[in-house]
């Protein structure tokens, strides 16, 4: 088989994913395990359909980078600051305790203490990719245990930096030339040791500064050009650029991407960027999991199956018990602590990087490293099982169901999504916000978004006719979508999409005129308001008042007219689509007006449109009665 053909390789990867992931999902195993199995099946120990899994791995690791970038974008600096206790406390305790415990075990196995320390800390790390993907699939990513798990993972990602810096100090094994690592810090290797910390600080400062000062105007400029694919290219270029920069100073590209994401978290383009690069994240992560699966050295496992499996199970057990205990001590409930502990028990993708790096630094022997990698890969593959165990144990140990604490409502769960924040949407939004409801706004005009954000409105840039952007703006959790975009065709398209893809959602739409209202009503929107109608009625009421009508009378006349017209609107909307019966009857706008006025006359006849408090018949009756009495007398 010609492994060199990239297209064929791509086909093998995609086909494997397409076949295995739905099956794994159907079996309740989650997509991660599906990818891993697919990788094992097509890998060098399975069908041997792959060329070099390692080279694919480099591309696939970029999926992790994108994921961290996206996670960063979900975390406003303020939210991150609120999580600082969990990150440093829980995360620090986990890395330290697991590192020392696992190191002690390795030392007990007879390894040199320096190698044991390195191995302990390498194995203390968990898999950000697998855990977050699993949490997301289970809808737990924003839950309290999900946040705790994320806090620990974030600390681990940061902890990689000092590990990369300190491992060389543990070197004691003679480095062989063959042990060239895949991920050693490049470029700076030859520089004096004090240069690297400076370069790290400089690179992070550069990311933050350019994110604040350079990237946003650039995105704004591109957004104005209206070229969607260039916007996507820019978003990808940003992530790749940050990754390259970070790698060049010896930082984890994922961590750099995370910082860049946080910097852009409160940017108006956040939703658009998210929606644009989300598919890359999914595909590349899948690729990453496949290459992990393909990288499992079945030859090694088969050579000493007891050792590898035993070590993997031991690793999972030690980490799960430690983390669960720590989470309990941090005040989490039993089921939450189990979820955090068992979820984070596997080894992480950084283990692959650090293992290679440690070999190069002469900390551990190549043979130990490959055993390490197999154990980690196996522990990753067992993660879905760990989640299942946590579920079962959690249900056993769950306290009596207490009212669920949903925590503070994040902006990601808005009550109302407003598409279009122009002169119409603004009024709607202000009214809702004034009454304490959370709104999420999408607007297509970069200028408008910028202005509104300066007034503190939660506004995002994006085209609301895109399902992915609507989703990113939170329609899945929102109760209502207000369609208030300027473009009539777009409004109809949005209403149609929203009703089809989000059946739970109430769609309230702003119509331009009668015809537009008919079109929207045909899409089964839950409410439609013609933008000029209420204003026209109110001005008419004012005119009636100036003509001398008492204010309440004029007000009622306006309301009565509105009700009459709304009934007509709903009645006629039913026939709007019927063949051309309606359309031919009333040709054009002028025809429609004439038709309406005919119908008005049928309803509003006689001297008054409002029969309320008309006592004329009562008066007449009373007069007759009195006259009858007088005649009788």
């Amino acid at each position, binding site marked *: 088989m010609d492994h060199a053909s990239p297209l064929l390789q791509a086909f093998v990867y995609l086909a494997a994913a397409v076949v295995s992931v739905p099956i794994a999902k159907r079996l309740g195993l989650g997509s991660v395990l599906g990818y891993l199995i697919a990788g094992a099946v097509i890998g060098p120990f399975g069908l041997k359909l792959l060329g070099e899994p390692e080279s694919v791995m480099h591309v696939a690791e970029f999926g992790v980078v994108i994921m961290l970038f996206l996670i960063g974008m979900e975390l406003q600096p303020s939210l991150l600051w609120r999580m600082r206790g969990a990150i440093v406390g829980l995360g620090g305790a986990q890395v330290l305790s697991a590192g020392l415990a696992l190191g002690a075990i390795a030392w007990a196995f007879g390894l040199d203490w320096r190698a044991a320390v390195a191995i302990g800390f390498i194995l203390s790390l968990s898999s950000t990719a697998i855990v977050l993907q699993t949490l997301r699939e289970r809808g737990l990513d924003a839950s309290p245990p999900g946040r705790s798990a994320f806090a620990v993972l974030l600390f681990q990602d940061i902890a990689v930096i000092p590990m990369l810096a300190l491992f060389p100090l543990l070197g004691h094994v003679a480095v062989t030339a063959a042990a060239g690592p895949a991920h050693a810090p490049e470029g700076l290797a030859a520089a004096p040791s004090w240069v690297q910390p400076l370069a790290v600080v400089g690179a992070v400062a550069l990311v933050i500064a350019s994110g604040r000062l350079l990237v946003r105007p650039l995105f704004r400029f591109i957004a104005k050009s209206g070229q969607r694919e260039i916007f996507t290219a820019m978003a990808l270029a940003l992530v790749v650029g940050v990754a390259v920069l970070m790698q060049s100073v010896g930082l984890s590209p994922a961590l750099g991407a995370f910082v860049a994401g946080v910097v852009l978290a409160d940017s108006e383009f956040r939703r658009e960027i998210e929606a644009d690069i989300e598919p890359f994240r999914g595909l590349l992560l899948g690729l990453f999991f496949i290459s992990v699966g393909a990288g499992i050295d079945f030859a090694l496992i088969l050579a000493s199956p007891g050792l590898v499996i035993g070590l993997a199970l031991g690793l999972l057990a030690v980490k799960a018990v430690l983390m669960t205990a720590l989470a309990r001590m941090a005040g989490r409930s039993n089921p939450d602590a189990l979820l955090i502990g068992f979820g984070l028990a596997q080894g992480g993708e950084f283990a692959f990087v650090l293992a290679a790096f440690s070999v190069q630094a002469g900390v551990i022997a190549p043979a130990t490293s490959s055993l390490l990698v197999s154990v980690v890969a196996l522990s990753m593959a067992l993660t879905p099982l760990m989640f299942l165990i946590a579920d079962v144990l959690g249900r056993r140990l769950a306290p009596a169901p207490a009212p669920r604490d949903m925590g503070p409502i994040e902006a990601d769960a808005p009550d109302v999504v407003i598409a279009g924040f122009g002169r119409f949407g603004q009024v709607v939004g202000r009214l809702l916000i004034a009454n304490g409801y959370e709104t999420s706004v999408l607007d297509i005009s970069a200028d408008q978004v910028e202005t509104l954000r300066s007034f503190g409105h939660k506004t995002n840039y994006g085209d609301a006719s895109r399902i992915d952007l609507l989703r990113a703006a939170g329609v899945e959790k929102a109760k209502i979508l207000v369609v208030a975009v300027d473009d009539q065709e777009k409004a109809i398209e949005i209403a149609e999409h929203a009703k089809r893809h989000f059946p739970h959602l109430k769609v309230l739409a702003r119509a331009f005129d009668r015809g537009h209202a008919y079109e929207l009503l045909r899409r089964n929107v839950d409410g439609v308001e013609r933008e000029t109608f209420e204003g026209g009625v109110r001005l008419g009421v004012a005119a009636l008042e100036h003509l001398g*009508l*008492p*204010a*309440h*009378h*004029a*007000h*009622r006349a306006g309301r009565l007219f509105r009700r009459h017209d709304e009934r007509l609107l709903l009645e006629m909307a039913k026939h709007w689509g019927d063949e051309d019966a309606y359309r031919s009857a009333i040709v054009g706008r002028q025809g429609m007006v004439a038709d309406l006025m005919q119908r008005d006359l049928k309803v509003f006849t006689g001297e008054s449109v*409002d029969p*309320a*408090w*008309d*006592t004329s018949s*009562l*008066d007449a009756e*009373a*007069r007759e009665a*009195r006259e009858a009495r007088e005649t009788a007398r």
Partner: protein
Amino acid sequence: MTRVLVLYAHPAPHRSLANAALIDAVRDLPGVTVHDLYETYPDLLIDIEAEQDLLVRHDAIVFQHPLFWYSAPAIVKEWLDVVLEHGFAYGQGGVALAGKAWLQSVTSGGVAAAYGPAGRNRFTVPELLRPFEATAALCGFRWLDPFVVHAAHLLDADGLAAECARYRARIDTLTKAPVAAAT
């Protein structure tokens, strides 16, 4: 001198000769403020603060309205519901209105004989106004004898003029009465 606030409520003034004439009869009296509720709040969205402010600046309030189904037009009920707030009009600290006078001025559709145990309306007008009397009592108002114009829509011009004069005299007397000491 007693400052008198007339809260006037007729939802369709164009259909009422009697109430329009009556309110015009007292409009120009010194010390009298006429406040047309339906004209001020055509959508019935009453400005609570403004209404309470008006109340505080007067010593007597007069509700003038037709009797609709043995009670007042809807806006009067709305007004009572939202303006007479707890802590303002009644309850702890609700003494803003204590000692002021309350006069109900109503026009009825039936002749005087129809209001009473023997009439078809079964009750006298003061009996029918008991919910207002109880409300006034709870808020510390002094309840004055209601002013009633019977069969208002059947009055001829002379009859209406006579009733207007009687009403004007009643309100004029009220403005000239000394302000009762707050109790």
